[in-house]
């Protein structure tokens, strides 16, 4: 494992270009349209799980209501594009900003609360959003939902087909990873991680924890909104039950299984979970049982997930003592 990582690191740029090329070629290589759809799902969930990971994995707040932000994005797109004919690419940032605003409101309790209270608030908020979407019929279509959401423009490609819609998810996913990577390697990202690791210490170093937690929340909500906006035209029809808490837990399962606190984790998670759900379809309800068992098992064996940050609080608060390499280290204080 370490060897692979070392090789990847060494030829990082080359590796990334290669992966990107493969990803671009993928929809043309995959024979069945259905499988392309799965690939689209994976890409979409990569961003959605990534946005959740930006919150749970980096600032250590357990957000359970990502479905709510996702819904905000999807409904923004659906409502504005069907009623006012606004362009998809314009709606993308609007959806993000709206979701971020909701994220800000949801995160306001963080100024006073921590931990579990926050989780509950996010879960409650997501439920409230869903119920509003379900009942506010004049605007959201209520239980009937919104149909015929126009397909976005993409260089004249026929985005009606998943083969081409794929590239919208790909673009968003790549931008998301690129931007998040940059944020994490900055002062802001360090502040988030310091909050995750030890809030008291972070405060004593002058990190305004409330501000950074809110910012972190807004950031995660923003991307959930963006990907929600991209999701609506893809499925062409949205209604409230698509955004239930189970959707939220599904995304949560992805980062729990794939790994929190790394950028790769959510990707791994969304691949595993999507492939599992699709390939285990014949098991009907049993697949969810398997799913749940995997989550529990992950918590027992590897709480940070398959590709998660082993060196973090996420790994269970214990540090594996490694012998310090001899030689080099000398204290002379």
């Amino acid at each position, binding site marked *: 494992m370490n060897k692979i990582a070392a090789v990847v690191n060494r030829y990082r740029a080359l590796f990334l270009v290669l992966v990107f090329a493969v990803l671009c070629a993928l929809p043309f290589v995959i024979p069945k349209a259905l499988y392309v759809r799965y690939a689209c799902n994976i890409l979409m969930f990569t961003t959605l799980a990534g946005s959740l990971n930006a919150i749970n994995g980096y600032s250590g707040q357990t957000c359970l209501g990502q479905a709510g932000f996702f819904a905000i994005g999807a409904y923004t797109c659906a409502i504005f594009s069907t009623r006012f004919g606004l362009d998809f690419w314009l709606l993308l940032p609007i959806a993000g900003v709206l979701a971020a605003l909701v994220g800000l409101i949801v995160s306001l309790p963080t100024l006073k609360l921590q931990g579990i209270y926050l989780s509950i608030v996010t879960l409650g908020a997501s439920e409230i959003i869903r119920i509003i979407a379900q009942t506010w019929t004049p605007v959201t279509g209520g239980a009937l939902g919104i149909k015929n959401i126009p397909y976005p423009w993409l260089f004249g490609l026929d985005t009606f087909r998943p083969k081409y819609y794929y590239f919208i998810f790909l673009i968003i996913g790549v931008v998301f990873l690129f*931007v998040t990577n*940059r*944020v994490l*390697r*900055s*002062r*802001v*990202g*360090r*502040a988030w*991680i*310091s909050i995750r*690791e*030890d809030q*008291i*210490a*972070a*405060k*004593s*170093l*002058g*990190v*305004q*924890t409330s501000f950074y937690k809110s*910012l972190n929340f807004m*950031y995660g909500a923003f991307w959930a909104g963006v990907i929600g906006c991209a999701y609506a035209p893809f499925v062409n029809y949205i209604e409230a039950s698509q955004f239930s808490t189970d959707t939220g837990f599904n995304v949560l399962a992805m980062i729990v299984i794939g790994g929190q606190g790394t950028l790769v984790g959510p990707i791994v998670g969304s691949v595993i979970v999507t492939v599992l759900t699709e390939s285990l379809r014949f098991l009907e309800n049993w697949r969810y049982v398997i799913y749940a068992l995997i989550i529990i098992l992950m918590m027992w064996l590897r709480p940070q997930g398959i590709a998660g*940050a082993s*060196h*973090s*609080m996420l*790994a269970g608060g214990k*540090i594996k*003592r*490694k012998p*310090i390499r001899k030689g*080099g*280290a*000398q*204290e*002379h*204080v």
Partner: protein
Amino acid sequence: MSERNMNGRTPLLEAQGICKYFGGLKAVENVDMKIYAGDIFGIIGPNGAGKTTFFNMCTGNFQPTKGKIFFDGEEITGMSPETVAQKHIARTFQNLQIFKFMTVLENVKIGCHIKTRSNLADAILHTRAYREDERYTTEKSLEILNRIGLSSYRDTLAGNLSYGTQRKVEIARAMALEPKILLLDEPAAGMNPLETRSLMEFIQSLNADGYTIAVIEHDMKFVMNSCNRILVLNFGQKILEGTPTEVKNNPEVQSAYFGKGMVAGEAIQ
């Protein structure tokens, strides 16, 4: 040494009549303190004397029940820990609050937080502010690690280090704030005598570089030899604030702290 501080200068950190009650328990009762720039200020007292509580009030972790705290002439009572830290008051903790899962370098880098200003947009766009901040952070952190002698551990996870070294990481991290005053809560706890001595020398050398330091310590040798002013607390009350000699010769301190019948001088040996 202390006389030079007495010439009517404003103290750097000043506590006026600080009280802290936890329900009926008077953890700290009416304590005054003046720390002047350039001091190594020792706070001593038996266990449970309220030293750490007192510290926590100075850094905003606790809010005093009564009394005021001034820093550089500005009142900082009631400020949150992060605001206090932004005034360049750095501290370490009695029970070590380092980021165990981060490397030593990353630990110190987070300490640079208040010295840098780049925001989310800067980070995404890699603006000049971002690049400057990153350069500053890295350079500053490496410089501090060099200074404290931890450069060889820069990529080691902090939690993997020995206890004494972890304490140094915490001090290094506090130094990244470019503190005007450094509050150390029992820095020598858990260290062996050798480590303690080297820490003492290090603290003195920091002081020589112009850092003002306040230190809570149980190790009498440490306090008597390196501090120029000492505050003695007992049961939350101030017994004395003075030079080591004054502390040594004060009968009340002797009975309260060193115990009756024990010669203070013996403890210093």
